[in-house]
């Protein structure tokens, strides 16, 4: 299994070398070169669709942008093929950033329509801007490909295309198995959880868009050199659909799937030509069949079948991991993780979910926040962790202001949280979930990820070992390779705690961790919280379960109707009349007294 990827890349390289040697005539070679160009687009689009989970139906627009940029740079300014490619990559990359911007606010079908609209806009700008693009007649007499004035022969140009596709496939494979691929998948599955782990979802989406735009732009330049003629009607909506279909047919998210998809969809229209008028119909039918019969794509289905057939992966040996004591413990002098929330007020419309609530979690303590349903506990947690903006008041962690910061920055300051309804990255493995939580501690950048430098490998190894150690800590070692969504509910809660701890937080917010657990599981949870606190992590525990709170908490704060009604040690809280009233209503004699007074 370890050697699968290198073997596949070797076979791929062998095929790329063998094809020109066996090609019967120039037409055959030309068609194969067209496949290489489509392959470049599909491999780049795969980052967007397969990893970041975003749908683009405007890839033909970016392809057109690259084609026109390359063609104009070479005909007007005499750029060679390298210069044209760089120019086209820059221009389409900028438009990639522009297209990524809407994803801050909209996704799914809205984003798809934005990309469709973008494609139509590009097509019509190409028609309208006649002085630059030649209007509907397009641009002809694009020079033959050359480098620094030396003309490339057919085979040399083939070599350029083949090397480009091979290198892009390899680089994107490296990206996929780095922190970038992992966090893109995480963001696609739960944006909320990603933000709480300090993952920059906007940055990752922009990166995915830029990669898919740059590859489409370069492919476009190659296309204009290959065809030496371009016009607006080459870049239509149906081409965008075709590019997307290449990725899905081959297998979104897989390394070689898009290449296979591009190959099939380059040669299929040639084959379908014999059906003439039925060609388009057959094309639509194929799309339909793929969606129903092969939703994972060819490579995805093969992988799935392979995984079902082979014996389950052996559970990870705990010795592979680093003990949490070495990876999570905080220095004694760092123990001052103190959370201070002062007079927080949050209003939804006319309703005050929190009014003037203050709370102080001292360093190293287990602080419980309790209150009846609707008291504002979850609002409080969401406000501290940056998901809601308080209307008034402020909070700080160790003297650093948290109010007004994004949740991902708050997470990076050392505040980790879990969710009342678990927010796991369901389709990722248990181990990968924890490794995604470790992401904020990784320092290697994009270039290092693409080139797999020693630093990147070392950090990844540490990340993996820490994650394995954490799984041992929460007792999930044997499930490390399972998909997170298949875990039973109680174990999902533990996994969420492990993932939150992976970032080495100073303060951990547990939002109703005992909800839905069995008595046995609650006892385990109690022991686990104690061990976490022993590592020097302050804990704010939001809970209903009185036994658990009395057993664990150093200090208890009680919320009711958005206000703090008591804050003291557990025994004092148990006897506090206001707390009893909030939970059980007014005692009978007092109610009678109130009744008599009225």
């Amino acid at each position, binding site marked *: 299994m370890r050697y699968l990827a290198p073997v596949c890349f070797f076979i791929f390289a062998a095929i790329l070398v063998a094809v020109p040697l066996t090609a019967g005539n120039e037409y055959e070679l030309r068609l194969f070169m067209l496949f290489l160009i489509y392959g470049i687009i599909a491999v780049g689009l795969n980052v967007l*669709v397969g990893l970041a*989970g975003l*749908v683009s*139906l405007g890839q033909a627009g970016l392809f057109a942008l690259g084609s026109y940029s390359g063609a104009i740079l070479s005909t007007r300014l005499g750029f060679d093929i390298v210069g044209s490619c760089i120019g086209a990559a820059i221009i389409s990359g900028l438009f990639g950033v522009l297209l990524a*911007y*809407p994803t801050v*606010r*909209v996704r*799914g*079908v*809205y984003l*798809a*329509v*934005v990309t*469709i*609209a*973008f494609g*139509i*806009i590009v*097509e*019509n*700008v190409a*028609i*309208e801007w006649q002085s630059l693009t030649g209007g509907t007649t397009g641009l002809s007499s694009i020079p033959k490909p050359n480098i620094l004035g030396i003309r490339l022969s057919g085979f040399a140009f083939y070599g350029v295309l083949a090397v480009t596709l091979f290198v892009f496939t390899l680089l994107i494979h490296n990206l996929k198995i780095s922190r970038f691929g992992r966090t893109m998948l995480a963001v696609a599955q739960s944006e*909320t959880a990603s933000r709480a782990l300090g993952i920059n979802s906007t940055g990752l989406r922009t990166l995915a868009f830029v990669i898919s735009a740059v590859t489409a732009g370069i492919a476009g330049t190659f296309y204009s050199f290959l065809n030496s003629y371009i016009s607006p009607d080459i870049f239509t*909506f*149906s081409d965008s*659909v075709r590019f*997307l*279909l290449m990725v*899905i047919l081959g297998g979104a998210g897989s390394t070689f799937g898009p290449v296979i998809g591009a190959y099939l969809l380059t040669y299929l229209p040639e084959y379908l030509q014999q059906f003439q*008028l*039925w*060609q*388009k*119909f057959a*094309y*639509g*039918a194929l*799309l*339909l069949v793929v*969606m*129903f019969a092969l*939703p994972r794509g060819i490579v995805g289905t093969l992988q799935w079948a392979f995984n079902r057939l082979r014996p389950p992966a052996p559970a990870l040996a705990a010795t592979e991991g680093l003990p949490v004591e070495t990876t999570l413990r905080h220095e004694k002098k760092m123990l001052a993780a103190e959370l201070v929330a002062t007079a927080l007020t949050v209003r*939804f419309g006319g309703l005050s979910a929190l009014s003037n609530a203050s709370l102080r979690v001292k360093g190293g303590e287990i602080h419980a926040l309790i209150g009846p349903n609707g008291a504002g506990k*979850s609002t409080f947690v*969401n406000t501290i962790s940056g*998901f809601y903006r308080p209307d008034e008041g402020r909070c700080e962690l160790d003297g650093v202001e948290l109010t007004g910061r994004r949740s991902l920055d708050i997470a990076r300051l050392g505040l980790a949280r879990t*969710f009342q309804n678990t927010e796991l990255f369901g389709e990722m493995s248990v181990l990968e979930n924890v490794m995604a939580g470790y992401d904020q501690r990784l320092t290697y950048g994009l270039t290092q990820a693409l080139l797999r430098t020693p630093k990147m490998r070392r950090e990844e190894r540490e990340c993996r070992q820490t994650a394995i150690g954490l799984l041992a800590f929460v007792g999930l070692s044997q499930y490390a390779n399972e998909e997170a969504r298949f875990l039973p509910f109680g174990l999902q809660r533990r996994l969420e705690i492990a993932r939150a701890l992976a970032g080495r937080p100073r303060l951990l917010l547990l939002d109703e961790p005992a909800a839905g657990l069995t008595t046995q599981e609650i006892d385990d949870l109690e022991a686990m919280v104690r061990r976490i606190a022993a590592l020097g992590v302050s804990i704010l525990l939001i809970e209903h379960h009185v036994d658990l709170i009395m057993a664990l908490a150093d200090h208890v704060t009680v919320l009711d109707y958005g206000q703090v009604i008591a804050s003291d040690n557990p025994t004092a809280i148990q006897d506090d009349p206001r707390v009893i009233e909030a939970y059980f209503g007014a005692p009978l004699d007092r109610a009678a007294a109130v009744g008599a007074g009225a």
Partner: protein
Amino acid sequence: MTTTIQYILSGLAIGGIYALVALGFHIMWSAARAVNFAHGDTLMLGAVLAVVGVDAEIPLPIACLLGIIAGAVFGVLLERFAIRPFTATSNSIGWMLTTIAVGVMIESLATLQFGGFSRPLASPGVKSAVHILGAGVYPQELAIPVFALLVMFGLKLMQRHTLVGRAMQAVAHDKRAAALMGINVNRIVAFSFALASLLGAAAGVLVAPVIQVSASMGALLGLKGFAVAIIGGITSAPGVVISGLCFGIMEKFVEGYISTAAREIIGFSVMILVLLAFPHGLFGKREVLKV
């Protein structure tokens, strides 16, 4: 002055078509949180079948009716077999691509049967033009925006006063709760798609006499209808109708003063800008993010 009136009146006509298409998207989205990307082809289907019907010497009103009914059946089938299997997944890519696939197939089938050329549908609404303040329009063109407004008010009345209308609103609000109240959610969704497709096909029949009928007429009209739904806010019926009419007028002015290509550039740019500034559309409801 005459030109201005002319642009406004013909803009209202095409805007009425956008409004009807967008209302269809509104109804589908409310019911299923999914739409039919081949909705433009529903419109085409209505128009093409009406023309084919007239060719076969079926009287015009019956031909139109047949076209509209066929459109509704198409919508129901599409929802059942292309959309419903994919709405369970969080990702919208499934039903987007299946409906696009069906659209491609229907369009090529229509091309095979109807030929690749455009034809008008004869209608009493375009026999002679009427003149309003010097601007000449066909009665048919005046009828379209009026029809769109009537449909909007009709929809409102139905949602307020009929059982099925109230069930539609319940499903739009919360599917699971609606199901627990004994509403057959699948049937309501199917009904919604039937209604939406009925309106789409009716828009096709209405616009057929004004513009030429062809197998490829649906794609762009459908897309612009969706753009209008986004601009107006897909959750608001009056919102999409108002933006549809305004969008139509804007298009006519851009087309008149600049060019057809500029019409598409400006139209879709407006959509993207509105979406950036108002993610829920100009009149749409804001959905609160819950963690």
